[in-house]
């Protein structure tokens, strides 16, 4: 899987003769665009299958990222993936399916969580969908508690900075959540004089907090303006444009990797199925769809034709259906699992040397 380090297009300069797709003054090689497109479509198909599950009773609650793929996929593709401080740490929110698929997660693993199976590698059927956790990829558990990931991000970045190398900490969250003090904490802890930290602070601005429009609660013109007093550079990007997003992410990552200081990106994105299944998970009509927009460009540039687009969608849907079928056939957690994995084994614990086993006996 192509990840950061493959040079072509990373800096916006295409190789001579290789076909490129252009957006404004920036471009990406056609192959990269195809890869991004396919991942976006797969992310969407997986989420749409999960929405169906939430309505059919094959799952309960759904929340996820349709409308954020134009940003979340380019993000996942550029992550320096691995375990430990030499690699990037990810403190994600619950709309990052595109990122996970781009990093190489299978649909099956995403859907296993939706289906609350014991095989769910993220939480063993414990957590809501989209609440990913992958230690091998430095993805710490996504929690439903809005914004607290911003409070933890400086910690991983401290270790990364001390460790050396170019690993960075990436934290994502929504716009409404920036009203919690944790957003400010992240800025403060990442800019302590002499102890600046390589934290890429990302805000996915969809203009909503559930039913509440951002414009009714937030006076900031741009959320990233809040970084300025702390000397944190940043940019607002059209998250519906994967090419612009790719480059913004690339600039942000490069800055954090090299300067070992924080950077902010505010990605303007859509929320295509409303907040979650609690609000009906209905397809909204009045917000731009990053996949449609990207396809128009790909078609216009002759990088894909209609047939290929259709095929990719069909394949993605089939993959999602198959993953759902497989997941639903897998075993559920049992009563014995309730207490499992509460404690890591400890040589100094007289009561719980291995794991939690109920009240002390």
């Amino acid at each position, binding site marked *: 899987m192509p990840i950061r380090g493959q040079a072509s297009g990373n800096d916006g300069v295409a190789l001579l003769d290789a076909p490129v797709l252009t957006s404004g003054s920036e471009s990406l090689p056609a192959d990269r665009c195809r890869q991004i497109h396919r991942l976006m479509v797969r992310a969407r198909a997986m989420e749409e299958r999960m929405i169906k599950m939430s309505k059919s009773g094959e799952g*309960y*609650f759904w929340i996820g990222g349709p409308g954020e793929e134009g940003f979340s996929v380019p993000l996942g593709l550029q992550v320096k993936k691995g375990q430990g401080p030499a690699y990037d740490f990810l403190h994600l929110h619950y709309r990052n399916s595109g990122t996970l698929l781009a990093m190489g997660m299978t649909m099956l693993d995403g859907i296993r969580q939706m289906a*609350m*199976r014991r095989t769910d590698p993220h*939480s*063993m*059927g*414990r*957590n*809501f969908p989209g609440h990913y956790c992958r230690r091998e990829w430095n993805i710490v558990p996504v*929690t*439903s*508690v*809005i*914004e607290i990931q911003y409070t933890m991000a400086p910690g991983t970045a401290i270790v990364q900075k001390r460790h050396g190398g170019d690993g960075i900490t990436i934290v994502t969250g929504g716009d*409404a*959540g920036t*009203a*919690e*003090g944790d957003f400010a904490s992240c800025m403060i802890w990442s800019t302590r004089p002499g102890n600046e930290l390589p934290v890429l602070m990302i805000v996915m601005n969809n203009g909503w*907090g*559930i*039913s*509440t429009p951002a414009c*009714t*609660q*937030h006076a900031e013109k741009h959320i990233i303006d809040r970084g300025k007093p702390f000397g944190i550079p940043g940019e607002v990007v059209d998250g519906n444009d994967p090419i612009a997003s790719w480059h913004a992410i690339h600039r942000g990552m490069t800055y954090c990797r090299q300067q070992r200081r924080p950077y902010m990106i505010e990605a303007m994105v859509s929320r295509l199925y409303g907040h979650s299944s*609690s609000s009906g998970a209905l397809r909204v009509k009045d917000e731009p769809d990053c996949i449609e927009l990207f396809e128009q460009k790909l078609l216009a540039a002759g990088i894909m034709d209609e047939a290929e687009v259709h095929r990719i969608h069909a394949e993605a849907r089939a993959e999602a259906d198959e993953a759902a079928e497989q997941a639903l056939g897998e075993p*559920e*957690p*049992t*009563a014995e*699992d*309730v*207490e499992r994995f*509460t404690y890591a084994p400890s040589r100094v614990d007289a009561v719980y040397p291995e794991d*939690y086993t*109920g*009240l002390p006996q």
Partner: protein
Amino acid sequence: MATLVQAVRMALHYGEEYLGVTDIFGEDVGPPLGGVFTATQGLKTAWNSPLDERGIIGTAMGIAYAGGRPVAEFQFCDYSFNTIDLLKVAGNQRWSGAGQWELPLVLMTPSGSGIRGSLYHSHSFESWASRLAGWKIVMPSNPLDAYGLMLSAIVDPNPVMVLLPKALLRVRGDKLIPGEPADEATLKQMIDAPVGDRTNWKPRWPDLKEYFVPLGKAALVREGDSATVISYGRTLPLCVQAADQLKQSEGIECDVLDLRSIFPYDWKAISASVSKTGRVLIVNEDTEVTNFGEHLLRRIIDQHFYDLKVRPRILLGKHVPGIGLNQNYERNSVPQLPHILSTLRELTTERA
């Protein structure tokens, strides 16, 4: 019959109209949504706040200081854990200022499990809340009590927390709220916001009447000499079911106390029943290490140890880091009807 959440909404309306409520606010509390559980639809003083629970309780305190009468909402009690310092301060403001200030504020929040809420929509809050000296804490288990407790919470000049059992929000009671139309469909049409566009929707409120459930008053919802069952919130109807089943199958009759107020709790009612039965079962779904039910048990041990005929029983949620989404987790984490029934049978049949 109104659902519990409709009852809360009607109480808030009554509060706005007659009891001086000035602000009903929190995340998604105002239009268009009117609360994620619809508790605040159509209320004239309802407004949306930033996504900031600390700001919500802090602002409520400020409003109360300045003479307003706020009802603030935390969308889920699960998201109140970054505000405990402010909750403690709200509870100590009168005390620390030696009686200068009142702080007439209501904080309402859905509590407990039962909505397939996974880790962060299944927490119980009453044990934490009970530790907040200076607060009063209530938890209704049916719509009429919700109405009456909410009205009391509003007129009480102290901070009052109203815990709404998540699992019972859509449950209907068997008693009409004073002024409520007898027909459910009529009520729905009058006060539930329509699906879809609501910009021009206005509720038509029934002519509601004042009805207070006093703070600190339990309800004896079943009577019998065989045992005392103490519960509230989500587990209360389960206890009633268990008591009814036991009566039917074995002819054993128990007192079932719906505590309704967590603090102050109705010690008189508890004490009278325990004196009578000598057998005690306490049930709630909060986690079991340092649980409010254990406080109640301690009081009973303190004052009725020698009245107890057999070992008192207590059924609580397991001490685990969370409740998992797959229902096999929840079913095995919080007390279920079969546990309650078997424990009650054991309790009532144990030889004294």
